[in-house]
């Protein structure tokens, strides 16, 4: 029992992201409306962003900005920089750009959906398929 609880405490963050990711995947596969599919894609993306950021967390570490980097504050002594005191900056960097790129690609997805709507007058997938088959 204690082993299982330790496992839950150590890994529960991954389970949350997997749940979120599967909600997104289900929406992409099963939803009929194109905008709902796009929203599913965004939920999927959010899960990956959260996963990456969580890999950067370190116990007892602060945000990756060096304290008193340009000389010590009044009265304080100069201290060396230890890697254990700061969180891993790499996932933050990768996700920083991924979030903005995600917004831009969301714009492209919405533009395509708008174009589809202009052509077929609907965003429901089955109705679009029916119109294509009729031709």
């Amino acid at each position: 029992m204690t082993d299982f609880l330790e496992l839950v405490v150590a890994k529960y963050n991954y389970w949350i992201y997997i749940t979120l990711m599967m909600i997104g995947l289900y929406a992409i596969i099963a939803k009929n409306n194109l905008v709902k599919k796009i929203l599913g894609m965004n939920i999927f993306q959010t899960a990956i962003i959260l996963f990456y950021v969580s890999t950067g967390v370190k116990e007892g570490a602060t945000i990756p900005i060096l304290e008193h980097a340009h000389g010590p504050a009044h009265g304080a002594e100069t201290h060396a920089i230890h890697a254990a005191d700061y969180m891993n900056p790499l996932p933050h960097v990768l996700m920083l750009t991924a979030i903005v790129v995600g917004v831009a690609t969301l714009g492209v997805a919405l533009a395509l959906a708008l174009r589809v709507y202009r052509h077929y007058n609907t965003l429901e997938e089955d109705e679009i398929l029916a119109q294509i088959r009729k031709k």
Partner: protein
Amino acid sequence: MKIIGLIIALTTGGFLVYAAVDFPDWADPQSPASTHVSPHYIEKTMEETSVPNIVTAVLADYRTFDTMFETTVIFSAAVACFFILRTFLREEERRERLYRHVLTGVTVRVKEGGKIPPSDDFERIDDSWIPHDLIIKTICRLLVPFIQIFALYVVAHGHHSPGGGFQGGVIFGASIIVLAMSHDLRTVLQRIGEKVVGVLCAMGVLLYAGTGALCLLLGLNFLDYSALAPVLGVGPVMARSHGILIVEIGVAIAVTTAMVWIYNNVSSRGKYDEGL
């Protein structure tokens, strides 16, 4: 389809949960992600680039190729939106338009080909126009300059606090989108036109790539900012710090205008006459 989707999602989720047992524990300082290259970044950033914010240093110096092409992706996304949606209407093809006489509040419908006498008394309004809420309009007009100053602060202060080109650019773009939503699209287009947006978006990417090319011309690797030291008149370490600021400004310009460009195209369905 719903059943198949559920089965696929549950199976994939089951495999991922099973695989997650082997992942490093939550907040483990000895995890593989925190032990290889990241200690080098944390310990050497200050002496190599003189930037306290490690995220900014890694973003725009150590992994600057990545960031340059991310900026290019954003630019390409904005251009893709433009090519997918934009339709240029000739003046005579426009449908009938609505004008509002500002002093009396009378709405005038102008048929195809009709013209309104050029005067300030009439303002063009959207088809689905409802009177703008005075509170929303006033608050947004008051807030927009402060949002923009904050955006510039976030860009300029990215070396010392959370911030940088991407964040500041998105905030600046949001301020312009707030203006478009609280007033209308034409208000924004009068202040920052379509051509200006397109040119600035390309200029942002060009500023980034141009800095890299300048480093190449000065005899070092592409985007190695220490080559800029003789141009900027500082030491090689400070030159890297200043180089980061230059490319961050390029990123900020590109991101701001990309956001505005995408919003303008999507909200007006590429016609640029009426927004949301």
